[in-house]
């Protein structure tokens, strides 16, 4: 696995479902977890008085307004080096978590468009950073994509892009407030055994769009999700009906790829 350095920075791109069904606790929790993850990246990259640009981070929201989820002067600058994120919204109290990403909800679920935008961003980025660690894309949604087949095709295109370190890592997280049957980091065999009823088609679609976890990610997943349903080698970066409280753990695993 390549190491993220200032010369070969890592890249994490969030795709955030901001459709109307995300209204309330889901969108608020999602924004909170993304902001905490951004803060953690900045902190990890900070040594002494300096924040070293070892990572570039971005977030695309999709819903009635699809585009950059981070409010900056030039919205087409999707990926920001961590030092630039550090300079944004500087709070007086440094312990305060900044709201780079705000909770939003409205409209449908144009997931395909988000993957299209992600492709454009990463096509440029991988061209500029051919020796960087493989970029990571974390897609979080709570419902059916408007166009599942089209989304799958876009995700496939995205995953085919690569740096010298490997293909783009795609992690799909489906969240739910219900205590429905959940699937976390399953293998192909585990997925086949699941009965998700009428949600099966969508779940399987998202599963196919997801990348296989590395050994290091499986090891971490075994620690953060202890118990009999522990992830196994061959597991994919995919969760269905994940509880909101699992998001930080899933982000921790997902962001390990780079």
């Amino acid at each position, binding site marked *: 696995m390549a190491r993220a350095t200032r010369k070969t920075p890592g890249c994490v791109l969030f795709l955030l479902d901001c459709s109307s069904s995300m209204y309330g606790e889901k969108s608020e929790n999602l924004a909170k977890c993304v902001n905490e993850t951004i803060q953690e990246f900045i*902190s990890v990259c900070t040594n*002494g*008085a300096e924040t070293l640009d*070892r990572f570039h981070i971005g977030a695309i929201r999709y819903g009635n307004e699809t585009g950059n989820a981070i409010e900056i002067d030039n919205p087409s600058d999707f990926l920001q080096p961590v030092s630039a994120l550090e300079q944004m919204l*500087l709070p007086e*109290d440094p312990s305060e978590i900044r709201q780079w990403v705000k909770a939003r909800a409205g409209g449908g679920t144009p997931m395909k468009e988000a993957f299209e935008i992600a492709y454009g961003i990463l096509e440029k980025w991988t061209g500029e950073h051919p020796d960087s660690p493989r970029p990571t894309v974390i897609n979080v949604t709570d419902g059916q994509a408007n166009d599942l087949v089209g989304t799958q095709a876009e995700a496939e295109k995205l995953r085919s892009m690569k740096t010298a370190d490997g293909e783009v890592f795609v992690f799909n997280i489906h969240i739910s407030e219900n205590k429905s049957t959940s699937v976390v980091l399953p293998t192909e065999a585990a997925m086949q055994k699941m009965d998700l009823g009428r949600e099966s088609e969508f779940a399987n679609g998202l599963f196919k769009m997801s990348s296989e976890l590395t050994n290091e990610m499986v090891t971490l997943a075994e620690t953060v999700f202890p118990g009999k349903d522990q992830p196994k080698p061959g597991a994919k970066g995919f969760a269905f009906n994940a509880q909101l409280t699992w998001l930080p753990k899933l982000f921790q695993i997902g962001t390990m790829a780079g």
Partner: protein
Amino acid sequence: MLAITSLQVPKDNSANLPDGGASNHCEDACSPPPDRPIRYTELPADGIRLAVSDGVSNTSFSGIWAALLVRAYVTGGIEEQLSTYRLEWWDRVTTGWPNLAGTPLKKARTGAAATMLGLSLTPTVGESLAAWRADACGDSCLVLVRKGQAILKFPLEQASQFNRMPPSIRTGEFKKDAANPATENEPAPLVGCTTGSVEPGDIFLLMTDALAKWFYTEQEEGGQPWAELGALTGPGEFEQWATENRTAGKIENDDVTLVLAEFVKEAPHERVL
């Protein structure tokens, strides 16, 4: 004669600089410092203290803390006056970087950490040349070589024991408006201690983790790493040696520090320092 030589090579940061340039930022500290070789014909009556310390790199300003821990050990104050050194660390950070804000300030407030190894040599009356005592916290290691054998490795004993989360001595957290760092959950600074007698020809090697791990691995594979290190004649050769071994993947790209204390009839060779 006791010949003491300190050698240090900072990690190669060129990959971390966009322009590919070099940086000499080092988070290791040692006493004596690298540019001051010491030769004693006899140990001073009150003995001498040597130390190496390795600032934990995922904490901020850890090089300053490592330097303070070394000073605390060699002046005999590491147990009793640690709280003073903790405050000095924070004072140095806030004085040196008065405009610290945002995440750098938040991270600095969580404090710094460093591993440490100290060796105390005191003269004795009788057959042995001196008595020694080593104190440690973490994976900075001591090796005692006697008659061509590494007879003691402390506190770690095998290469497999090195990991990413060694115990460390922490400054504690500096919460906003608090007069003192929060240290209630901090363990005792030095967690291991061992003692012995010095014999003629003894060689003590104090090493920070990257070098110690290399040393242990070489020895476990049947090598005599002390001979390889002892043959290096100065900082230039040591730097070249570290670079070659990093390139060969034998030693991790980390700060590397060695304090070599040799009880010999004469200095084995004059190191150009």
